[in-house]
């Protein structure tokens, strides 16, 4: 069943796959982000309680969901790398890490910006914001561990182990923080508790979620290509690639003249 994936354990074919995926991912990301954001910000109806300030969910919720999702994806990549000894799996894991951290940061930033009108404070130790913050620390840990090693292959494996330890911890952290929150603040009305959301509000949210996911994938693919090139700079196929690129550049101006 997974046989078709096997060739992509090789860096060269992974690079080719990235090249062919890249335009689709970027196109899809830009299209759905444009549609979702314009629909959400301009055309979706305002919330009867929060007015227009609720519209930040079109950024906040997708980034929050995908910050967790990216971490899980990193852990899956790490597991694949550890079990089947794929260099490209560790490379793609490390390509995802900063993108995921960025998503976490966006979720935290928009959460804080939303908190100001809602709670009157920039930062409240709300359960979900706190778990997002801890998630950001977990991302930092994985990235710091990767940077600390000189041997990037060793670095990938080490960061992979840490990502797996982290992913086991994410649900524990999530529930423990939630529990801690109810213990210390009593029942606060969580701003995210929207049991039923009107479909005209939901659709742009889903489109934006897709857009964010495609955007993460697109950036990951670009970063993965860079990582592969940087790591394999001495390999013949990279040098052939560079040579052929150089050729193209030389040819073009001649045509122009």
């Amino acid at each position, binding site marked *: 069943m997974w046989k078709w994936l096997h060739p992509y354990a090789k860096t060269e074919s992974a690079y080719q796959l990235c090249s062919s995926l890249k335009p689709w991912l970027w196109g899809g990301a830009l299209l759905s982000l444009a549609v979702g954001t314009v629909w959400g910000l301009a055309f979706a109806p305002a919330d009867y309680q929060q007015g227009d300030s609720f519209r930040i969910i079109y950024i906040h919720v997708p980034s929050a969901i995908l910050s967790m999702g990216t971490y899980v994806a990193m852990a899956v990549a790490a597991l694949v790398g550890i079990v089947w000894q794929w260099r490209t799996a560790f490379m793609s894991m490390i390509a995802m890490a900063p993108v995921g951290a960025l998503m976490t940061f966006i979720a935290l930033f928009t959460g804080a910006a939303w908190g100001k009108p809602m709670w009157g404070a920039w930062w409240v130790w709300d359960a979900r914001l706190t778990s997002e913050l801890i998630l950001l620390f977990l991302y930092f840990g994985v990235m710091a561990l990767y940077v600390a090693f*000189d*041997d*990037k*292959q060793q670095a990938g494996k080490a960061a992979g182990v840490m990502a797996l330890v982290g992913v086991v911890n994410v649900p524990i952290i999530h529930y423990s923080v939630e529990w801690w929150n109810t213990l210390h603040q009593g029942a606060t009305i969580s701003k995210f508790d929207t049991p039923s959301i009107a479909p005209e509000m939901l659709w742009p949210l889903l489109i934006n979620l897709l857009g964010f996911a495609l955007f993460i994938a697109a950036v990951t693919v670009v970063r993965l290509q860079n990582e592969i090139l940087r*790591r*394999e700079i*001495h390999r*013949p196929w990279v*040098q052939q690639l560079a040579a052929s690129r150089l050729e193209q550049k030389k040819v073009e101006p001649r045509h122009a003249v």
Partner: protein
Amino acid sequence: MIECLPIFYSQRAEQGLSGLIGNNLTCYKQDRCLFQNLNIHLQSGELVHLRGPNGAGKTSLMRILVGLTSPEKGGVRCNGLDISTPAIAKDMVFIGHKPGLNGLLSAEENLMYWSAQHEIAVSSTAIHEVLESLSLVGMEEIPVKNLSAGQQRRVALARLWLKPATFWLLDEPFTSLDTEGIAMMETVFARHVSRHGAILMTSHQSLSERAGPFRIEQLEYQL
């Protein structure tokens, strides 16, 4: 254009053959290819001197052959069994760059704990005898960090006397030994080989005739 090429081919080893066999070994360090598709064969009754310039991957090859590191590609088998099989450890001694001695413990304690880990029944008088033959009399109780580098190396090499193993893999065993020590080690090597032992060692100095017949394998530096 830089391409990794196979460096040397001992005859291509078959599975189930006796001896220590590295098959199609490929090793990368810091994304640099040290060697690719390398085959190496160490049989009982032979002494192999692994040579090559600094950075050629002698130590990496050594660590792959004892199973400390796993190669990018290829595998190591010993007497037909995969190198990760615990039973193989009983028939092998590896002495690396690092002496494997804790500076706070004395020579005797270091060797006692090491023997316990390797499940060798050794009395402390036996350890004293070995240390004596290595001219370390009176040094048994001193913390190892207070010994000189050459003396520390001798304590590390004492393992060869304590553990009855066929395969000796020695990474630079002569570092900081004096000429007398080197001569003694060479006679010990010759004796071990004559008793159907097998030795793979690296050293930047050539072996003298005292070590008996030996084979040289050359490892080249590659970009």
